[in-house]
């Protein structure tokens, strides 16, 4: 799959069909998902109506992690094979990923206020999502600050991979730290039961978010590929090279 799409021409052919498919799935997903989440689903017997926040929080958190995984994989490909398309893809995943991470944090804290009566708990999950946001910001900052794009692609991919290996370590340490300081005085508002009434809107929103992430990434990758192609077309011819013997 990856090696098939590595060719820009083949990628563009794939994107011509895949982009609208993702777009349509996302659009349908959001319409039905919102209908199910806000209108057609009942309130939870424990959490009441606030359970509806889960339908936007969990998909955002899922996309935040999926985007970083995709980013790290693309970085690995870019680092090993020096593939321009992988650079472009890694970079394209970063902004949506950071935005979803931000959304996961904000919706999480809006869920926390009615549930725990506080906007923020330094619990393991929220803290590691916050750290993930820092990693995204640092990744984007490396791209922004390094002017030579070839250097930036390489250094950003190295950073992304180091970040990816460290995420489980950070997650483990934050969970451990949390269990030390807050010995289970509350449980984070996870999925309350798994009745189909809750599962159906949640799954629909998951599909919608994932398709949206796909659409956003493909749009940006396509744009960058076309930009690179047109830049190559407009490129100057380059220096003329001659090699000749010199008589001393």
């Amino acid at each position, binding site marked *: 799959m990856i090696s098939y799409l590595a060719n820009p021409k083949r990628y563009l052919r794939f994107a011509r069909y895949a982009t609208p498919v993702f777009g349509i799935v996302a659009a349908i997903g959001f319409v039905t998902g919102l209908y199910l989440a806000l209108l057609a689903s009942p309130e939870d017997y424990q959490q009441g109506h606030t359970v509806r926040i889960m339908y936007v929080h969990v998909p955002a958190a899922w996309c935040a992690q999926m985007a970083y995984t995709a980013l790290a994989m693309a970085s690995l490909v870019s680092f090993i094979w*020096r593939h321009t398309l992988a650079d472009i893809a890694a970079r394209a995943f970063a902004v949506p990923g950071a935005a979803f991470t931000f959304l996961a944090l904000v919706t999480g804290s809006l869920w926390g206020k009615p549930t725990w009566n506080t906007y923020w708990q330094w619990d393991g999950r929220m803290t590691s999502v916050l750290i993930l946001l820092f990693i995204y910001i640092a990744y984007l900052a490396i791209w922004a600050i390094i002017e*030579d*794009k070839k250097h930036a692609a390489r250094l950003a991919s190295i950073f992304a991979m180091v970040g990816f290996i460290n995420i489980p370590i950070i997650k483990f340490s934050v969970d451990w730290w949390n269990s030390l300081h807050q010995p289970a005085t509350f449980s984070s508002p996870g999925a309350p039961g798994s009745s189909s009434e809750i599962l159906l809107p949640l799954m629909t929103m998951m599909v919608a978010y994932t398709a949206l992430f796909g659409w956003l990434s493909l749009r940006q990758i396509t744009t960058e590929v076309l930009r690179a192609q047109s*830049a190559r077309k*407009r*490129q*100057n*011819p*380059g*220096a*003329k*090279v*001659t*090699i*000749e*013997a*010199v008589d*001393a």
Partner: protein
Amino acid sequence: MITEFPTTKLTLTDVGMSRGNYHLFSGVSFELTPGQVLWVHGDNGIGKTTLLRIASGFTPPETGTASYSMSGQSCKPENIIAYQGHQTGFKAKLTAQEELSFWAKLHGFNGQLPDIFTLIGLGEKLSVPTGSLSAGQKRRLGLGRLIISQKPVWIMDEPAASLDAEGSQLTEMIISDHTARGGSVIIASHSPAKVLGQNARRLTLRAAS
């Protein structure tokens, strides 16, 4: 002084490179064998330094390949290449003596350092911090490091810059001594140096109109 170098070959095949969206060159191919000098000539900004850094193994070329071999076996660029770029590569706070003995240790040089200092004309400057040396004297110190490296292939970016007549003569002498012993050299320079012996070629990068 060291005796002879192993037979080395540096081969660039169809190398192309761009800087940002600016296409520098493509289709550069040459082979550098023992005793040869390649003089890279061209205006500022045309890509001389980029080509030298590709040949030195710092920068992988966008298209084409750079390959290196020693005694018929392919090897890494750092096995055979010594590079002297625009930056001196010396610490201002360390003395000339400290610097050369550090690099001698790093390159495994067993020869006599005082001889090297005499050769490059810095015999009196041993205990002077390199920050207090003139630009030309730093260039001479760089020549000393090239010798100490005992590498067969020297790649030099504008070696004649900021050197006086005597210094240029010294450079030419050291280079021709190096090629006579089976070494090879790539030089980027505006001015044609006299060192270009019978084995010299000129690679010209000229802006396409």
